[in-house]
């Protein structure tokens, strides 16, 4: 099974990359964009078959290494 993890800055933490991208979209005349957040995606190939166990493990990985929970949130999707 695969774990797809999206890590992004918490709401309320200024995302300067998102802001720069937003400016760039504006200058390309894409006027309908209200906000941009830039994050990163980490994809893990797991040999675990038990979804619940996988979720527990990946959550621990996020807490310990993959995200810095002082400034970042993470979302995990198992497929």
């Amino acid at each position, binding site marked *: 099974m695969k774990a797809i993890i999206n890590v992004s*800055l918490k709401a309320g933490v200024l995302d300067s990359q998102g802001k720069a991208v937003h400016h760039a979209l504006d200058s390309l005349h894409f006027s309908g964009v209200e906000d941009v957040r830039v994050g990163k995606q980490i994809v893990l190939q797991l040999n675990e078959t038990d979804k619940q166990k996988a979720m527990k493990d990946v959550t621990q990985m996020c807490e310990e290494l993959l995200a*810095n929970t002082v*400034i970042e949130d993470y979302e995990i999707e198992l497929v």
Partner: protein
Amino acid sequence: MKVSILQFPGTNCEYDTQHAFEQLGAKTEIVWHKSESIPADTSLLVVAGGFSYGDYLRSGAIAKFSPVMKAVAEYANNGGKVLGICNGFQVLTEAGLLPGALKRNNGLHFISKHHTLKVVNNDNIFLEKLNNGDVVNIPIAHHDGNYFIDADGLKELEVNNQILLKYTDENGDIKNPNGSVESIAGVCNKEKTVFGLMPHPERAMESILGSDDGVKMLQGFLEA
């Protein structure tokens, strides 16, 4: 007085740091990150600047799992003095030895230049040779120096006098190069034994090279 200096793959300020402390009369030792202990006679442990593990994932994020970091945490938790400079500051926040985190600079650029800083709290060994309000000229060189801490954390820093330095102009008025909360350039832990800052005092040791304001900062550790 023995200063031990950590070296990770990608660290690049360990020899500058060594040179700076030896210039002040300290004995030094470079400690490779695979070491599971730090020299027993260490009186100051420095996590030097650079790009440990290429800054992959986040600055300092991978270095915190190096074998030596267990010994660092133990040393710090027993009251040992630790100084993290630049990437070393990032490593110490990632390792939870200092509060907050360091984000990408607001302007998204790598900034490398001399910057003036104001001393905010000198009631600690690092800054005791300076006075509150003193302005020092110290180089900065970072991409991820944008200090972040939430409102509660900031209050705690302020109440406990943990804010060491702020980025200012030469008159001591706030001038923020990277977006740091409250223009913070360096902090310490509550016990005032673990110190971290983005600017490089070890690069400000000779006036002929632009500034010797780093001497007074590093000297504080030698007399402790």
